[in-house]
C-alpha cells in the first residue's frame, strides 16, 4: 500500500497540546530558535481534559504515523484538574488500543510546561525518531481500503484516491 521507502519516509506526527502549558512551551522553543523536527503538526486545545480519545483515532485514520498528547504538569492545570482527568482517561485508552493491536510506541503522552522549550524539543525529537525507525502506520490506512465483500469492486480510481490519504 505504502510505497514510501524507509529512506524517504518522513513520519507525520500529530500533537494534541493544551494551550496554557505545552503550546506555550513549543512557542518558547520556537522563539528561542531551538531546532526540532518539522514532522510535528500541533493542534491546540484549551486543556488536555478536552482531548477526546476519538481525536487520536481520527488522527491515525487520517494518516498520522505517531500521536503526541501533551499538557500541563500535574497541579499546574489552568482549570485545576483537567490534566488529572486526562491522565486517567489516557491510561485507560492506551490499554484499549493495545488490546485492539495498536503499537503503543506510536502514542506518546507528556507534561511540558510553558518554560520547558527544551523538553518539548526532546519529546518531539524522540517520538519522531522512534516512529521513523518503525516505519509508516499502515493498519488504519489499510482498513480504510477494505470493504464488506458485497460492496468491493476493483476500481483503480478509488484505490488511487485512498492511497493519496
Amino acid at each position, binding site marked *: 500500500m505504502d510505497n514510501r521507502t524507509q529512506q524517504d519516509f518522513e513520519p507525520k506526527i500529530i500533537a494534541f497540546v493544551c494551550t496554557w502549558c505545552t503550546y506555550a512551551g513549543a512557542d518558547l522553543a520556537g522563539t528561542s530558535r531551538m531546532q526540532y523536527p518539522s514532522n510535528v503538526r500541533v493542534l491546540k486545545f484549551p486543556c488536555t481534559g478536552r482531548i*477526546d*480519545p*476519538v481525536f487520536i*483515532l*481520527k488522527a491515525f*485514520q487520517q494518516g498520522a504515523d505517531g500521536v503526541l498528547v501533551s499538557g500541563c504538569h*500535574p*497541579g499546574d492545570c489552568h482549570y485545576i*484538574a483537567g490534566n*488529572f*482527568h486526562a*491522565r*486517567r*482517561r*489516557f*491510561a*485507560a*485508552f*492506551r*490499554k*484499549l*488500543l*493495545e*488490546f*485492539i*493491536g*495498536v*503499537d503503543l510506541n506510536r502514542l*506518546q*503522552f*507528556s*507534561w511540558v510546561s510553558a518554560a520547558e522549550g527544551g523538553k518539548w524539543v526532546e*519529546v518531539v525529537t*524522540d517520538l519522531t525518531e522512534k516512529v521513523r525507525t518503525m516505519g509508516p502506520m499502515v*493498519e*488504519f490506512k489499510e*482498513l*480504510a481500503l*477494505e*470493504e*464488506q465483500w458485497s*460492496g468491493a469492486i476493483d476500481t483503480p480510481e478509488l484505490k488511487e484516491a485512498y492511497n493519496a490519504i
Partner: protein
Amino acid sequence: MNNHAALDTSIYTAVTEAIRVEAQRILSEGQVTAVIGYAASRRKGSARPVIATDAVAADKLIFTAACVNNLAVYLTKAKKDIHKGGKIGIVVKGCDLKALIGLMGESQLKREDLYLIGVPCSGVLGSTMQPATELTTATIAPKCCECDVHQPTGCDFIPSVTVPSTPQLEGKYSAEIARLEALTPAERWSYWKEQFAKCIKCYACRQVCPFCFCEQCLCDRNKPQMVDSTPRPSGNTAWHIVRAMHLAGRCAGCAECERVCPMDIPLNLLNRKMAKELKELYDYESGLEVLEKGPLNSFAEKDDQSFIK
C-alpha cells in the same frame, strides 16, 4: 457427544410464582404504576420483556433461563417513552441490578422511584436465537460463569429460594483475554479486524446497553463526523473502540451487547478487558454499592503516570 452437563434451573418455577404474586400485589395496591418483567411469547421456551400494568398481565410474568434481557434499559433516558413517572417495579437478576446501581450513580435513576424484585438466578442462556435450548455448561451465558451475584441483595423483594450451588465453570472471558494479551499487537489487530469486519452497524449493541443512554450518540452526529457511519471495516473499528471507551468504568457486565450481536462479535471481551484494567489501575469494580463517581470521572493526585514523559 461432549460432556456438557445440564444445569439445575429447578428454582425458576418457584421464582416465577413468587414474582407473579408480588407483582400482582404491588400493582393492585397501587404501589407501582407498572412492573417491567418477562413473559413467554410464541416460540417454545421463549421469553420477552413486557411492561405489566395490571394484575392480569402480572399473572403472565415468568422467569426462565431464556430471561436474558437486562430490563434496566427500559428505565433509561433513551427509552423515556416508557418511564412516565410514578414508581416502577422491575425484575432484576444480579447482573442487571449492577447496571441499575451504576445508573443511580450517574444520576439517571432514583432508588426511591423503583421497586426492585430481585431474582435468585442460577444462570441464563448465552443466546436466545433458539430459546428452547436447555441450559447446560455449554449453552450458559459466559457472563454467568464469572457471576458473583447469583443472589442479589438490597432489593425490595427477593423470592425466598436458595440458588443451587453451581458447578465451577470455566471463566471464558478471563481465559480469552489472557490468550489475546499473549499475542503480538499485529496478531491482535488481525483478530479484531476479522471480528469488526462482520459488523453491519445495526447498533443492537448500543440500543440494548443500559449505559448507552445518550439522547444523541456521538456516532450519530455528522458535525463533526468523528466516526464514519457506514458499515465498512474502518468505521466499524472506530465505532467499537469508541463504544468500549465510553463504557470503560461504567459497564456493569450484563453482556447484552455481545448476546444481541447478530454477527456474533465478542463485544463483551472489550468491556471485560477495560474492567480488568480499571481494577488494576484504580481498584474499581462495578458492584452493588452506589458510587457518586466512577473511575474515569474522578482522580487521585498519586495516580500512575509512568506512561507519561
